[in-house]
């Protein structure tokens, strides 16, 4: 089967702590993959490794068969590997829609849009509408610093979508959102996979996650301990043990 993105036995150690330890992973086109695991199990580090913000000590990252292990983050974005951040850190001094203009200045967006001053803002406004900002609402023009948390998360998503992602890695997109907010984004995510884009979701909110993903990978202490369809994986003993003391939601 065709694979867009492959991680081969990647490891990363931080000051003696093995954050990610020999994890292999593959993502197919149009697939939504969930990565779950307790806090500190290496989920975010794995995203950092895949998107190039951290270099692995060992292992390789392949994108459509090409070794991109040593490519810069911006180089990977140009190929279509786009990520969001767990804690949204917008460009605080810029109005919300200008936040989305920034990725539209990148080479990847340039290849798609061409130049044009007004066009970028137009596209940015469309994207904001797509992630649930009301058209022409005050929130669109406010400095990002004044937006509530849920809006910042959606702004972050819009920033990613502006880059026309082939593989979109979302780091705890739903955290800090109300259930209503979170479920309002689910159709959008499902539509993205329908367009042939691959999603990788790192998530604690399993209820929402299982509505989107086809497959989950479970990490614990930096190792992959299980992989497979959500219902099957959550039934496993070692997964339950890793989540001990945590309420495990039944897969939908």
């Amino acid at each position: 089967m065709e694979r867009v993105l492959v991680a081969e036995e990647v490891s990363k150690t931080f000051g003696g702590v093995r954050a990610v330890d020999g994890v292999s992973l593959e993502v197919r086109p149009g697939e939504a993959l969930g990565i779950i695991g307790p806090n500190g199990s290496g989920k975010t580090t794995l995203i950092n490794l895949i998107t190039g913000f951290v270099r692995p000590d060992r292992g390789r990252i392949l994108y459509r068969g090409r070794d991109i292990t040593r490519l810069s983050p911006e180089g990977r974005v140009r190929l279509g590997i786009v990520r969001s951040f767990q804690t949204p850190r917008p460009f605080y001094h810029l109005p919300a829609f200008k936040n989305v203009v920034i990725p539209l200045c990148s080479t990847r967006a340039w290849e798609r849009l061409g130049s044009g001053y007004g066009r970028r803002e137009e596209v940015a406004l469309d994207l904001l509408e797509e992630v649930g900002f009301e058209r022409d609402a005050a929130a669109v023009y406010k400095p990002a610093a004044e937006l509530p948390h849920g809006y910042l998360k959606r702004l972050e998503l819009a920033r990613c979508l502006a880059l026309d992602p082939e593989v979109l890695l979302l780091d705890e997109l739903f955290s800090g959102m109300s259930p209503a907010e979170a479920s309002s984004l689910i159709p959008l995510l499902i539509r993205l996979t329908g367009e042939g884009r691959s999603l990788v979701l790192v998530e604690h909110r399993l209820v929402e996650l299982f509505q989107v993903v086809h497959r989950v990978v479970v990490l614990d202490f930096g190792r992959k301990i299980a992989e497979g369809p959500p219902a099957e994986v959550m039934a496993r003993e070692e997964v339950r043990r890793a989540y001990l003391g945590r309420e495990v939601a039944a897969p939908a």
Partner: protein
Amino acid sequence: MFEALSILLYGLVQSAVLLLIALGFSVTFGISGIPNFAHGGIYILSGFACWYLLRKAHWPYPLAVAATVALAAAIGTLLYWLVIRPVRRLVLAEVLATFAVGVAFLELFRWMGLVTYEFHLPPVLSGSVTIGGVTMDRHRLVIVGAAAGLGMLLWWFGRATRTGLALRAMAQEEYTALAMGVHEDRMAAIGVALGSALAAVAAVLVLPLGIISINLGYDAILVALALTVTGGTERTAGLLLAALLLGMGTVLASMVLGPHWSEVIYLLAIVVVLAVRPSGILGRFKELEERV
């Protein structure tokens, strides 16, 4: 053999000197995250204050030294509340404001004409000893001892005491520290005051090696920056190692290339370390920061 021993001993002394000068800056930066560019200014100010108390007011030596250290701590506290506090959290404004205060001190002294040979401080101990054929005055031994002692003291202070713990918590994670009930402003003020007091200690110990000159204040900042960058900010051991490396390096450089080259070593250290290993030789912070 004699050459080697002499380089080793004087390198050690130089390392101790560098450590003493940098300790205050590093402590302030480590505790409150404030890059106190006024450090060099306070260092020289302490030198002149001590000189005044000894030569003009004719205070006994221990009293003059104690008063100098107390004065520096007071200036540090004032500096925090009057200048740094209003621009807190704006990192660059903190740099600009402390930089301006430091330059103001130094240039004020220059304008007052405090640049002649009469300005020198007495050594703590006079006389000299001979170690393996190398003559060394006792004062330099005092410097080495003091540097080692202060280094140890700070290490212990950071590990063991409650204030130390609070300070460390603050340096590493301000929000957590706040949640733990660490009073942020008071701690930051203590950080600056402690750093300034250490600058005064350094002045009393190091300045007797020569005359008090204004440019030493700029050098002090350079030294502090070089050591802090080279050693990383979070561990006393890193600072120690950086002091040894740079101390030996400058002594070697001034023997081989000439005395003017020691500053080049500091600067090279800054640039090379920042380029190759920005977290410092023993540091881990920058890499952790990359985890986002």
